[in-house]
């Protein structure tokens, strides 16, 4: 059992890390865009991005299944090749990315809204291009908030279960994560295993949230 638990933990951490690595930068960029520019449809975009928070995870899972499944818009018939999403760890990454996306975007957006745009204007008057302004001025001012956003997304990804199970399956040894392992153990009445997994998950969650809190408070 300890070997299975270690494997599930490792898989959860791996999937969540990849999900944040892949989804994080675009999500932060999106948050910046929505904080700075009021473009037509911004509110609608915000609403759509927030859907994974509102809909039940199994609904999102079913949507993803239809999207990547055979006959779907990203399925092998339409694309001509198999993306290899269904029933693989890549599917778990996709599901976790989708579920964590709204948290990262919103937190990033709020962070950037807290950075005074006048600093950026000043940087521009001093001759810095838009990218340089962002990387040398905006980003350093927003670092703590962005890190908090990413950690929040990471934590959500570690705990993600409903959508992941539909897209990646709950195959022990291949796509079973900590969260889906807890579910399976509970359902089967293996209470001791379930409790053990819950303890591990709680520790992971506490460490992440504490780290996020410290970052948000910041060290001068």
């Amino acid at each position, binding site marked *: 059992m300890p070997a299975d638990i270690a494997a599930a933990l490792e898989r959860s951490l791996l999937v969540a890390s990849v999900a944040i690595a892949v989804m994080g930068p675009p999500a932060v960029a999106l948050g910046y865009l929505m904080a700075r520019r009021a473009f037509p449809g911004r509110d609608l975009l915000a609403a759509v991005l927030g859907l994974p928070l509102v809909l039940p995870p199994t609904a999102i899972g079913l949507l993803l299944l239809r999207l990547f*499944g*055979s*006959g779907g818009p990203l399925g092998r018939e339409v694309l001509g090749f198999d993306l290899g999403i*269904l029933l693989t760890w890549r599917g778990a990454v996709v599901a976790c990315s989708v579920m964590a996306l709204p948290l990262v975007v919103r937190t990033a957006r709020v962070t950037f809204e807290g950075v005074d745009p006048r600093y950026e204007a000043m940087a521009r008057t001093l001759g810095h291009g838009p990218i340089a302004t962002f990387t040398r001025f905006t980003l350093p001012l927003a670092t703590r908030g962005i890190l908090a956003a990413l950690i929040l997304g990471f934590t959500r990804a570690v705990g993600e279960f409903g959508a992941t199970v539909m897209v990646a399956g*709950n*195959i022990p040894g291949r796509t079973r994560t900590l969260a889906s392992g807890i579910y399976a153990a509970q*359902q*089967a009445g*293996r209470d001791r295993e379930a409790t053990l997994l819950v303890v591990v998950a709680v520790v992971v969650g506490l460490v992440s949230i504490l780290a996020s809190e410290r970052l948000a408070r910041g060290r001068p």
Partner: protein
Amino acid sequence: MTGVRRAAIRYRARDLLSMRRSRLRRGPLLARALSLGAAVAMALSGCDDRVPKPVLVFAAASLEEAMLEVGAAYTRSTGVGVALNTAGSNVLARQIEAGAPADLFVSADARWVDELIARGHLDGASRRELLGNRLVVIAHPRASFSLATLGEIGGLGFRHLSLADPESVPAGRYARSLLAHTHTAVGTAWDQVAARVVPAPDVRAALALVAAEPEAVGIVYRSDVVDAAGKGVVVLLEVDREPDPPIRYVAALVRRAGRLTPGSVELLDFLDGEEAGAIFDRHGFPRPPRTARSSR
């Protein structure tokens, strides 16, 4: 009524109204809120004293559509409402154990009912086997699998076998049992497919996976594919043989504080009757053989 009396009543009414209005405005806010709340509560509770409360049925998820129809038929003939809570039978059993206010439990396997009877949550005398079911092997419409007997399933070139989790969901356990008792030249069918099993949280999820993945086949209840085309799959094989133990939907009345809910006995009898039997049959749930149906 004379004009004078009518006028007097009008004046009196106006008096009362203005009095009531000013009385409502006087006095501390809390007292006014409480009296308003009490009036509302009395008005609401005064309704429907003579209409019996609906019977709350906890039923296995696979029974949902059939139970809705049977419940509607029961309400039409008796006027008693039927409220339904569906989930995996294991989930329902835990809810009942935790004291959920169910009146009747219809489980997809006997294990949960017998466990709850042993712990005193269900009434053993009312236990009866209501329905049976069969298993079918399904595949994606575009897949080119064909199956004549269950024993051939190991040699079928699928990548994934989509089942409800055999560790916890009755449908998965029945499927595993059936495969484990199917002998081939090279061991049991279960031995040949176990490595390719994808355990789904429930039967419908297992079905959804097969509808999305041509390299997967699945084993689900026949009742789930009564309209197979509508669900996006094709049936490769209908397995007539029953798993061991056979698929039985077992029902029993719930005891709360040692008592049964009035009205639940009538509903259970209705579920056992002819009208309900026809509805269940149409949804793919036959009655089990007569001899097995009496309570223990």
